[in-house]
């Protein structure tokens, strides 16, 4: 490693050659403010257009100020980060940015977690000189089933564009227009609905302002709870319990499962269930499907549709429906846990409590924005009555809890209701990249080999690398597993499948970096990737502490099959728990 000597704010330091001024300063504890820059270390994700110009610093010998985020240090560079010239420049540039930004913080969904608001505060902006003669760039507002775009609030940081193109390779968002009217939007300023958007929500997860936000369904949920004629059932996804605490000041990675249940009960939900239960159910269905396909494959059947692709992630489903419709028979036909839960709640459970499905409202708490669209898919409803009525994100739930004046941190722990609240460790790890396939392996191994597993932790399937692979010994049969998180990584594996050169038997895909714990509906990470890692650790911790860690041993799952479904992949199971996919290429309108 070649090192160079630089001086920042009169302190000399030795840094690796090629280090940016920003990283060098941060290592020294010097805090240079940044706005557009964002970096997720372990995920290899960095946004550095050098566009906002807030991080400018003085570099000796250079005529103009230099952006710290993209300027590399040379040997002997002398840098000053907070001179009057720099402070005046930052303030003036910030005034420019704010002069073209709506001042409706009172009702902005981002208020309180807005990076622009924080920066205005930090730089001490109290007025915008010349605001009275300043024109604002305004745009048409766009509401999709999952995401709202309010470009009036776009500050051209380009983070969403980077996520959508470089990380997800979805290509729904890019810069449009020039100069003052420049903003980030779908091609020809189409609505998101007519773009290749998968609703993965990674754009929302990184947007520093209120330009990209989720569609808020808390009002609908509140009205359902208020309605005495409705039985309101709530399910909560695995990743939610590992992140919700952050919204209430708890350390990232704090598990709040018990408090979450208590809060939901206080909010007035009639039944508080766990999506993890449905995750166990998914394993039963998808695991069985895998074994069936594997059986065909081993017999040399060309139509075995191996590798099987997981289908839990709605962003991923949208992605292949848009981009690889010719492969729509390859993914597992198993519905996602959210939808399996809805289907079972409105049939099996509604029968149990003797109500009509129309009198039941199923709400899901999800780390995900694509789940909102998934719940609205027409194939997931019966006579116009959706299996899942409303899907709200972790962030929306946090708002809801705050509105209800619930002292979340000091809530006692409660247990999920039965029967749809019981889950195993396998269901819990669904929230992590690699978790679905690990859960599937635990069950499939025992069903395939007829033997008990000697170990349950398949650490070779865990981690944060974008594409991972492992071979699991199924008692002599080497099962090749591929894992991708982030749609750009998924695309690579899918291209292999399409070209017939994939060596895998099963592939797990999650649209979001890190899996559901990094979902578009989670508390904002503001570019701190250690938060994602803490959440992942928390889920593995919860798995470890569960008395039952394999799905097929969940007693309520066993009961469900006995009382209602019969066998995995039975006709009834197919009817309720499986789906099919569509060619949605045509819905993308690429014209002005």
């Amino acid at each position, binding site marked *: 490693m070649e090192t160079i000597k630089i001086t920042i704010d009169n302190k000399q330091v030795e840094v690796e050659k090629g280090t940016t001024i920003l990283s060098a300063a941060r290592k020294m504890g010097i805090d240079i403010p940044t706005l557009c820059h964002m970096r997720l270390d372990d995920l290899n994700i960095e946004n550095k257009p050098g566009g*906002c110009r807030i991080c400018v610093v003085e570099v000796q010998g250079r005529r103009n100020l230099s952006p710290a985020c993209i300027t590399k240090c040379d040997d002997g560079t002398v840098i000053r980060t907070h001179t009057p*010239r720099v402070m005046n*420049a930052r303030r003036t540039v910030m005034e*420019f940015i704010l002069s073209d930004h709506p001042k409706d913080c009172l009702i902005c969904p981002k208020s309180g977690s807005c990076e622009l608001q924080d920066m205005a505060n930090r730089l001490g902006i109290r007025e915008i000189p*010349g605001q009275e003669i300043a024109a604002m760039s305004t745009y048409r507002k766009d509401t999709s089933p999952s995401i709202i775009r309010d470009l009036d609030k776009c500050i*051209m940081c380009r983070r969403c564009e980077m996520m959508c193109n470089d990380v997800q390779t979805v290509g729904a968002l890019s810069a449009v*227009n020039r100069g003052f009217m*420049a903003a980030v939007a779908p091609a020809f300023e189409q609505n998101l609905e007519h773009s290749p958007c998968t609703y993965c929500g990674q754009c929302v997860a990184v947007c520093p302002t209120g330009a990209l936000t989720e569609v808020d369904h808390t009002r609908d949920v509140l009205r359902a709870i208020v309605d005495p004629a409705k039985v309101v059932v709530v399910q909560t996804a695995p990743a939610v319990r590992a992140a919700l605490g952050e919204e209430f000041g708890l350390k990232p990675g704090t598990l709040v499962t018990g408090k979450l249940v208590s809060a939901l009960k206080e909010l007035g939900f009639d039944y508080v269930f766990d999506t993890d239960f449905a995750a166990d159910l998914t394993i039963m269905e998808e695991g069985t499907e895998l074994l069936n396909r594997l059986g065909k494959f081993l017999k040399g059947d060309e139509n075995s549709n191996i590798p099987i692709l997981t289908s839990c992630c709605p962003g991923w489903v949208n992605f292949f429906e848009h981009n690889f419709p010719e492969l729509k028979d390859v993914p597992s036909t198993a519905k996602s846990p959210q939808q399996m839960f809805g289907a079972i709640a409105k049939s099996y459970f509604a029968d149990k409590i003797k109500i009509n499905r129309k009198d039941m409202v199923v709400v899901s708490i999800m780390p995900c924005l694509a789940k909102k669209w998934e719940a609205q898919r027409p194939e997931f409803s019966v006579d116009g009555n959706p299996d899942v009525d409303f899907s709200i994100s972790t962030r929306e739930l946090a708002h809801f809890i705050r509105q209800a004046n619930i002292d979340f941190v000091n809530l006692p722990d409660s247990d999920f209701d039965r029967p749809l609240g019981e889950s195993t460790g396998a269901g819990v790890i669904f929230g992590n990249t690699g978790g679905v396939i690990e859960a599937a392996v635990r069950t499939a191994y025992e069903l395939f080999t007829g033997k008990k597993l000697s170990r349950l932790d398949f650490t070779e399937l865990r981690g944060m690398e974008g594409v991972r692979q492992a071979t699991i010994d199924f008692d002599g049969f080497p099962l090749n597993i591929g894992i991708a998180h982030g749609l750009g990584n998924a695309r690579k594996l899918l291209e292999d499948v399409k070209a017939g050169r994939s060596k895998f038997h099963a592939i797990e895909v999650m649209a979001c970096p890190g899996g559901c714990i990094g979902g578009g509906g989670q508390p904002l990470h503001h570019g701190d990737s250690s938060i994602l890692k803490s959440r992942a650790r928390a889920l593995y911790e919860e798995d470890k502490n569960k008395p039952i860690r394999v799905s097929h041993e969940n007693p309520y799952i066993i009961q469900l099959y006995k009382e209602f479904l019969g066998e995995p992949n039975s006709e009834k199971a197919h009817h309720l728990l499986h789906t099919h996919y569509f060619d949605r290429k045509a819905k993308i309108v690429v014209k002005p």
Partner: protein
Amino acid sequence: MHLLVCGGTGCRASESSLILESLKRELEEKGLGSEVQVIMTGCFGFCEKGPVVKVMPDNTFYVQVKPEDAAVIVAEHVIKGRPVQRLLYVDPKSKEHVSDSKHMGFYRKQIRIALRNCGFINPENIDEYIARDGYEALAKCVSEYSGADVIDIIKKSGLRGRGGAGFPTGLKWEIASKNKADQKYVVCNADEGDPGAFMDRSVLEGDPHSVLEAMAICGYAIGASKGLIYIRAEYPLAIQRLKVALGQAREYGLLGNNILGSDFGFDIELRYGAGAFVCGEETALIHSMEGHRGEPTNKPPFPAESGFLGKPSNVNNVETYANIPVIITKGWEWFSSIGTEKSKGTKVFALAGKINNVGLIEVPMGTTLREIIFEIGGGIKNGKKFKAVQTGGPSGGCLTEKHLDTPIDFDNLVAVGSMMGSGGMIVMDEDDCMVSIAKFFLEFTVEESCGKCAPCRIGNKRLHELLTHITKGNGTMADLDRLKNMCNVIKDTSLCGLGQTSPNPVLSTMNNFMDEYLAHVTEKRCPAGQCRDLMKYSIILDKCVGCTACARGCPVNAITGERKGPHFIDQEKCIKCGACFEKCKFGAVLIN
């Protein structure tokens, strides 16, 4: 005998192709079709008096020729050898007809290096280029010199980039040559975007081979086998002539593999731009060529290190390349003997604005503004007083009377607060309001900003708004302070050259014409009488005869009065269109 007809865009717009046809027809009719050749050349530069026809070898220069003049030119000059007096240029001072262009004030002080063939040869005939030593330089390079020798010659010549910033060309080539790569590119920036500048277009229209030859020489010097010309699609004639030239050069083996029997191979492709000003910035140009949004990126890395498709690329503009072949054939000693100490050779300027001889000129570096404006340019139109000259287009600054004797070179212009830019020169007279001039240039940069960085995207818009505010008489002294601060911060923090220079017109007019700004702000008065909102029309009662012409001419019925009685203007209704002023034959309408 040759008849040269200007085929530049300007003269063609005035039907010079019809002149060409008429001359040919007349000659045919007189049986001289094979004796006298009629050739369409590139631009002569004297656009003010176009269309231009030149008779060789006696250098007779006919101006403002019409197609119907063909008969008299053939009958009188060609057959009888008598120049057509009425078509000759009349010297505005001596009022004498000037026959030989060498004696015209417009040409007397010019030295033509980059424009050496423009107006002399048929640009669509490679033989004519070769007849004037064309491709001799390339032959010399591949047979006698090494790449390093060529770079050494260019370095010693002192040639600096003609695109704007004046970076030493030889040094640029040397850096590109030292960066090792499997593929390098020679890029020609033909995205001429300065309002009023058209020297690059003229070179490409009048002498395309000089650029092709120079690019091949550059390729030989830096070790590149591919060249790209980025040209705006609004230059159809230049594109057509380039295509013809490329075809001929390939046919002659001057492009392609084994050029002139050597091991050196080089070919050139055209890339079209959509005419965005920012795409003249080299990184934005490269992104545009790659098919991306035409946006600049931070430098370093410079294109010489990582350019087109990430490969080392040398980017020079058209005029720079046009100098190269002559430097090789005539030697660096000759070239460096022309010009000033640090700026060698000549520079092409496009004269525009309130000047008598609008057109394209090429003068040695070190020529004074006074020589250019008053000798070559023939002084100010309509005998008005010179006020200022804007050099460097919208990125440059306004220079005044006190700068007239400054020898023009790269460094002197920067020292007095302007810049060379690509060589636009817009002359202003006493009727021009300098605040409005600054506003005019800002309007251009607001329109042309790409929108990537905040200071340029929003700051320039705010500058323009504030200038508008001032020209409407609403400005305050505090606004002037704010204006200056905004200018300084935009310059200091913008990402690329566009934003780093866009406030120059404001700063230079503030420096040189502060009294005009003060008049607008404190007295609510526009000294030049240009700012409509500050004008007040009134009727001098003593002079008004009550003819009612003004009242009848007023489009908004703001003038009242009895016939033969005094008239009045209702200031509330007046839209300051000036119709009354023009209608009044008695000088009774007063403008304040």
